[in-house]
């Protein structure tokens, strides 16, 4: 099953099971979603539950907040992460805060989904990642689907959760193939050990997990050591328990993210490692991240702006060698 099909199925099943689930966004209905995530659903559930909205992101999220207040379970799609900036007031000042400000009187069972990241030459206004901004907002759950099975289970959870959830997808994952274990009991807040290993903990999420996995054989060969690869899955809250266990075993941590290095999300993981796990560290915790530049259109420059499997492998091997591995 493709990643986008897994997402589609998660929405489909929750819509079938719960008549209060509605989907809204640009081209989500008749068009089937610009990444085909909602394909076929309007035929099943009608235009009242697959709501094609105008290009008005502030309203898309703002309306979803109001729907949730009134007892629906809206799933709002923002076509691309960059456009979500137009809705940041509704996401941060409203969606994240009504429950707290109302002392729990108002619950917002809603999801805001969007794809993010560097795709293929979409340039600076269509290539960004906002997990660092949104994971810093108390009151929001932030899930990042880097895996087909996780995407299915986590989205179902998100839709049926009574908390507001930001659900992040990656533009390059929609056609990724994977197995879905429909009966599995997945805790969406638990980090996923993608590969076990004993010498280096590599933490990542979304598409970078795949790039890390591609880099690992090279690293292991060069260093003669094994890597443990962790997909964070939930970016807020973070499953620090899993990270702690892994780090205690390996003594070394590398965080790989696609976003710009300055201010990127990964800083809080290495910062946590330094603050909470200092005496378990056998080497400086490092971050491999994108360059501090807007994303350029030219393909060579674009690839130079973000981590690639080659760059990841090279950097980890170098760091390992200069730090006693």
């Amino acid at each position: 099953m493709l990643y986008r099909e897994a997402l589609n199925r998660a929405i489909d099943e929750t819509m079938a099971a719960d008549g209060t689930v509605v989907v809204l966004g640009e081209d989500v209905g008749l068009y089937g979603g610009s990444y085909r995530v909602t394909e076929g659903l309007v035929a099943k559930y009608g235009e009242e539950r697959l709501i094609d909205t105008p290009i008005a992101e502030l309203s898309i999220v703002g309306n979803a907040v109001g729907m949730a207040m009134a007892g629906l379970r809206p799933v709002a799609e923002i076509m691309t992460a960059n456009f979500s900036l137009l809705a940041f007031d509704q996401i941060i000042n409203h969606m994240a805060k009504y429950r707290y400000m109302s002392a729990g009187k108002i619950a917002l069972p809603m999801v805001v989904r969007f794809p993010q990241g560097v795709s293929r030459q979409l340039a600076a206004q269509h290539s960004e990642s906002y997990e660092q901004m949104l994971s810093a907002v108390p009151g929001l759950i932030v899930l990042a689907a880097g895996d087909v099975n996780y995407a299915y289970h986590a989205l179902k959870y998100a839709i049926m959760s009574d908390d507001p959830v930001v659900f992040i997808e990656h533009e390059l994952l929609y056609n990724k193939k994977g197995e879905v274990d429909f009966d599995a009991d997945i805790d969406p807040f638990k980090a996923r050990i993608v590969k076990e290993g004993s010498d280096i903990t590599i933490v990542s999420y979304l598409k970078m997990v795949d790039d890390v996995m591609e880099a690992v054989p090279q690293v292991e060969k060069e260093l003669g050591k094994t890597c443990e690869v962790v997909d964070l899955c939930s970016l807020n809250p973070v499953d620090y328990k899993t990270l702690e266990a892994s780090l205690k075993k390996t003594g070394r941590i590398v965080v790989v993210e696609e976003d710009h290095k300055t201010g990127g999300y990964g800083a809080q993981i290495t910062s946590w490692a330094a603050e909470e796990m200092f005496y378990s560290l056998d080497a400086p915790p490092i971050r491999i991240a994108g360059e501090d530049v807007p994303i350029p259109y030219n393909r060579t420059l674009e690839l130079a702006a973000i981590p690639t499997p080659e760059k990841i492998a090279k950097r980890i091997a170098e760091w390992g060698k200069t730090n006693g591995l």
Partner: protein
Amino acid sequence: MNKLLAEEIYYNMVLGRTFELAAKEHYMAGDISGFLHLDIGQEGFSVAAMKAFEKGDVFTTYREHVMAIARGMDPRAVMAELFGKAGGISRGRGGSMHLFDPSHFFYGGDAIVGGQIPNAVGCAYARKFQGSEDGVMVIFGDGASNGGAFFESLNIASAQKLPLLFVCENNGYAIGTKITRVAPFEKQAKKAEPYMMTKEVDGMDAVAVYEAVREAQELIQAGHGPVFLEAMTCRYEGHSMSDPGTYRSKEEMGICKSKDAIERMESYLKTMYGLTDTQLQGVQRRAQATVDDAAAFAAAAAEPELSELFEDVFCKERVNASF
């Protein structure tokens, strides 16, 4: 308007003003802090709108104490909220700008100018979807009528034919800025004309407001789609307690106060139903007693426990299960 209703509205207006004057005093005494936006001068609108739109959901702004009380929320719980106490309607976490009570279909209490309007649109969508006929009322100021959230909402509510009553409470100012300095015209209803039926009402005339809102809600209930109502009002105080309000002349304020909605309602009750000054004073005393009681309650109420700091960030079940 029948006598019972007129008396009820009058009582709530007096209650509202008395409440606001007490809040002002307690602000100056340091019992209340933060931004305190008083509704003094605008009570006629606030009370009549709430009473007229009794059934249906209401969304409004930070200037909402009087509306909350007129809506049926306990003045004790409202005053305690201003005091930041655990007995407050939002357990002291929201304060003056964030009064919420879904049991009264009252959704705040939003302090982002215009921010509540898209929420009301979504609520109206949900009500239509759920088959409810009463509709939703969203109240906002003239200042909010220049923001993207407002405009997008007019367009969407119209395109989706939502049961939504837009009410612009036009007091002529956004803090210190006169509406005509930042918009091309004074009356904001003009902006809604391409999208829906619009109406203007004298916001200093509670009876007229009541009727206009009833009429508008009836249109909505009849499936007419959204309606826009503009109520011209006047605030007597500064924008909030921190605004000295020097941008309005004495003359302007004089004209403004000469239309006092409470006095007007008193005349109405006297003329239409022969109420006497003694009877009106009785109402005023009753309001004063209610406010005194609310203030005493708020003063005596407990502070929230420190542990409440961490409550309701997420829903309890999940937090317990997963953190």
